């Protein structure tokens, strides 16, 4: 690493946000430096070894649509793949990969080490160089100062991280890694709003000590799904199964008896946990009358005997953890290899960021990942992509990139975070996306690849593939529109058996497909229409045709939103001067500092009347400006 260089982008932290950020900036041609505690832990999965799942796979596909790493690496490291919600509508289907923790790390590291424009350096960062509210570089733990045009911080759970096991506590960034206290302290001296959050992880179990005889096996899907557009399915390693165990009445008794030893319930942990139940203590306390809870036993990898018992995250003392595990079905002789724990860490109020993830307080400084109050690899990775790309754009003096709520889950997440902030670790759910029918796992490329190409994120290979795919979709749609089926045709009898109302007039295959009761496969089987050779194209076409009514309506809704999205609220707007706004609304606007009228209208408590008053005020400012 050449310390005399002026880097375009320095990324602090090599977790899921940091790796995507660094890779994105490097793809865009920026001289990029990734500084992280340890090269060995690049892409380390701190908690459960799985990528994707509902809401999350949408983010993974969006990263992939911009040629990012997560989907590709997950395909190379995934040892069990399933499509969740397979039988439900396409908008809510989601691919989930159980990953081999070691393979994941290896492939991630390999990809990064073979990225041009990217330098990786193992060191901790202890401070930022800030000049006139503008970041100019970082200070390393060993004292060295590095200059850069922009900095992306992705320190995850490491800032002032505090690990709890029972009443015992020690500093740490995650099990086995030191916390990042120097950086935390120096950031606390800056004007950021900082608060604490908490999360937890279950103990790990030695697979050889589990009795599988009565446990339900959960194999992956066949054919094995994959996440990346660039994948074919051939990159998967050997596939293995997960198993389903359950807690018992005994588990409940153990927990109830020992609750006073839980740092979360005895008040030792002050950080806020989520409304859902991340720990088994929570589940037992909040849903006292539920006799049993399911626990997925997920293999940690092909070369490891460890199991991740998904569903029993806990910070109770080790002795209690052992009792809990042994009270579970099939686990009476289980051996724990690592204790579960809870971790508390600093996060930065995301309302201090704008929609590029740049800080509103310090220019050229970007935040991504868990430090923005989110939880999850996918949430972190997607933010990393956005922050890395924007840092690159800034370094290149180019216009910034934002993703709208109508363009991606990434847009929904960032907008939620920066306008509403968060009181709990923010996790993606499809119900957060109002344009869920438009934002599907299957069309991330249609939504983002072209933009990614313009930004310089998307390489030639993906671009070619994307264009070919778009053309095929287009052609297939046209083909269906050009095929006519007449009531007199021989095949019509077959069709009528499926149709709710018999075919009465000449229709195109496209029209037929619009009917809810007709599927693409019916056209092939009943109407003798040649099948497209690529099932992913035919299914895309089917979705487009079937959803068109809904998609059109969402497009209308989106258009209306766009208008308000375009009315910007100046940063220096003085809310106290606005006639008629209630004090409550003024305070909310001050706290959130929305960037646009649309954002303001999404803040709870900001009424339509307040929005009207804001608009009138803006107009007044404009007129005053014109007059002077």
């Amino acid at each position, binding site marked *: 690493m050449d310390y005399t260089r002026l880097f375009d982008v320095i990324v602090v932290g090599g977790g899921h946000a940091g790796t995507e950020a660094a890779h994105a900036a490097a793809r865009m041609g920026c001289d990029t430096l990734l500084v992280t505690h340890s090269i060995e832990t690049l892409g380390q999965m701190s908690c459960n070894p799985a990528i994707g799942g509902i809401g999350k796979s949408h983010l993974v596909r969006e990263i992939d649509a911009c040629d990012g790493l997560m989907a590709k690496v997950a395909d190379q490291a995934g040892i069990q793949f399933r499509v969740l919600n397979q039988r439900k509508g396409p908008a809510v289907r989601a691919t989930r990969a159980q990953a081999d923790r070691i393979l994941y790390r290896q492939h991630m590291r390999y990809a990064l080490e073979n990225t041009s424009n990217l330098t990786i350096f193992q060191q901790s960062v202890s401070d930022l160089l800030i000049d006139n509210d503008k970041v100019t570089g970082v200070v390393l733990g060993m004292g060295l100062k590095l200059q850069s045009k922009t900095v992306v911080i992705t320190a995850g759970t490491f800032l002032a991280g505090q690990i709890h096991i029972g009443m015992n506590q020690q500093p740490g960034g995650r099990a086995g890694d030191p916390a990042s206290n120097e950086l935390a302290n120096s950031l606390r001296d800056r004007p950021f709003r900082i608060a604490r959050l908490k999360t937890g992880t279950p103990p790990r179990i030695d697979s050889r000590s589990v009795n599988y005889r009565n446990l339900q096996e959960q194999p992956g899907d066949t054919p094995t799904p994959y996440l990346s557009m660039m994948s074919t399915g051939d990159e998967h390693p050997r596939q293995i199964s997960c198993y389903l165990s359950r807690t018992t009445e005994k588990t409940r008794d153990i927990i109830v008896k020992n609750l006073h030893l839980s740092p979360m319930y005895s008040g030792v942990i002050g950080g806020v946990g989520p409304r859902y139940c991340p720990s088994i203590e929570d589940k037992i306390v909040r849903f006292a009358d539920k006799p049993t809870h399911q626990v997925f036993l997920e293999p940690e990898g092909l070369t490891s005997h460890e199991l991740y018992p998904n569903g029993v995250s806990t910070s109770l003392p080790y002795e209690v953890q052992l009792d809990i595990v042994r009270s579970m079905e099939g686990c009476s002789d289980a051996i724990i290899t690592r204790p579960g724990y809870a971790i508390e860490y600093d996060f930065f109020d995301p309302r201090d960021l704008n929609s590029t993830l740049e800080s509103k307080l310090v220019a050229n400084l970007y935040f991504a990942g868990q430090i923005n109050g989110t939880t999850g690899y996918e949430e972190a990775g997607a933010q990393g992509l956005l922050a890395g790309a924007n840092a690159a754009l800034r370094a290149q003096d180019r216009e910034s990139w934002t993703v709208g709520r109508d363009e991606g889950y990434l847009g929904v997440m960032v907008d939620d975070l920066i306008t509403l902030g968060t009181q709990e670790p923010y996790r993606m759910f499809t*119900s957060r996306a109002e344009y869920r029918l438009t934002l599907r796992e299957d069309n991330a490329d249609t939504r983002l690849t072209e933009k990614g190409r313009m930004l310089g994120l998307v390489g030639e290979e993906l671009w070619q593939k994307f264009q070919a795919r778009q053309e095929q979709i287009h052609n297939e749609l046209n083909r269906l529109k050009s095929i006519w089926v007449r009531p007199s045709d021989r095949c019509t009898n077959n069709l009528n058996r499926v149709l709710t109302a018999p075919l009465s007039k000449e229709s195109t295959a496209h029209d037929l497909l619009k009917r809810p009761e007709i599927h693409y496969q019916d056209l092939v089987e009943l109407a003798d229409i040649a099948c497209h050779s690529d099932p992913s194209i035919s299914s895309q076409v089917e979705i487009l045709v079937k959803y068109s009514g809904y998609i059109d309506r969402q497009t209308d809704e989106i258009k209306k939103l766009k208008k308000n999205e375009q009315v910007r609220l100046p940063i220096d707007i003085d809310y106290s001067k606005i006639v008629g706004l209630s004090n409550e609304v003024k305070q909310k606007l001050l706290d959130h500092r929305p960037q646009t009228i649309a954002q303001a209208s999404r803040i709870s408590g900001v009424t339509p009347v307040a929005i009207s008053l804001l608009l009138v005020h803006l*107009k007044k400012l404009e007129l005053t400006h014109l007059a002077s």
Partner: protein
Amino acid sequence: MIRSDTIVASATAPGRGAISIIRISGPQSVKIAQTLSGKTLKPRIATLGSIISGSEIIDTGIWIYFVGPHSFTGEDTIEFQGHGGPVVIQTILCLMTRHGARLAEPGEFSQRAFLNGKIDLTQAEAISDLINASSVSAVKAANNSLQGHFADQINSIISNLIALRTQIEAHIDFPDEDINPQTINTFSLTITNIKTHIGKLIQSAKEGAKLNRSAEIVLIGEPNAGKSSLLNSLAQAPLAIVTDIPGTTRDLIRHDLLIDGLEVRITDTAGIRSTTDIIENEGINRAIAALQGVDLVLCLFDDRHQQISEDSVQHLIGIPSNIPVGLLSTKIDIHRKPVDNQTRYPLLEVSAKTGEGLDEFRNWLLEQLDLTTHAETPFLARQRHLEHLKNANLHMDAAGRHHLTIETIDLVAEDLRLAQNALSEITGRFTSDDLLTSIFSTFCIGK
């Protein structure tokens, strides 16, 4: 909110004057006007035409088309000058909303005018005040409309809808979780139930609309103050029993009057005093309860009161919150001395016996209830609620039309989201985060 939809409102006070003006502004305004009148309208030329619904002529008047930006709001604007009274105006407004216009929010015409640069800077403050003031009256009107049975029904519809969405969204977002949600069949059933419920509410709200159109007035006073006599003489019929025995009236006696085209519902009540009579006490409780959400309270004082203080008023109605109050000195045929009014409320003098002062009283009433163009009448508020209910119903219909299978669950969820959005316009925003809270408190989630 910046909107480019088409809005409509009456530009004249209801119930007053010979001419009423209805204004439509926005991209659809010309189309709506031409559909309703059946005429081709030319810019700035007055065209005589009727408003026809089916085969019925609702009103006949003059249509004027102002092409944006040369109009009050800066948008394409239509004015219809008709002769109809309040009932006709409401009918016309309904017709227009059915053809794609939306009832204007309070102050919205002026706001659009300002935002489109039709009103200069000096008036910015005035516009803000206007938006504010009208929103206060709108909130009040909306609250009044959202009371009692109507509110109960809406709340029950909304909570059923939330429960349903909680189930469906949990189905979608947490398929791997150990939850035992209702089956698809019960979803369909619940959708049908909610739909029926909304349908019934729309029906009853429509039937109730006639009553809701009137202004509500309550007469209150000590026993023998002359409340029942005043009611009888306004109604010109012996509706309430009148005797010189204090405590004659027990039940609430309601009557709908038409004063100069304005519908007024007047309520006679039991005289307020402390008594041990159980029946009378119940009557007094009802009298107090009747004050809720009315447009005007009239406190009656007879010749026993030479002066009226804030205390005398408080004695009758407690501490008046935001209800407008008026004072009536009654039986002026038997006491001619002017009453000393020490309160901040206006005072009028009447005699139910001779009819003296009644004309002045009626005029004063109209002024009090003069719901200016910007103020929101309970009728408009209710009308707006009805629009939202109908929208919600459309989406519920769509949700019900899907043959609900697991495969279409995402489409059904979308229709339900839209239905909820429509209802949220009545009761306030329900966000996706609220939905998550409901999911997390219903199901144990967290792998």
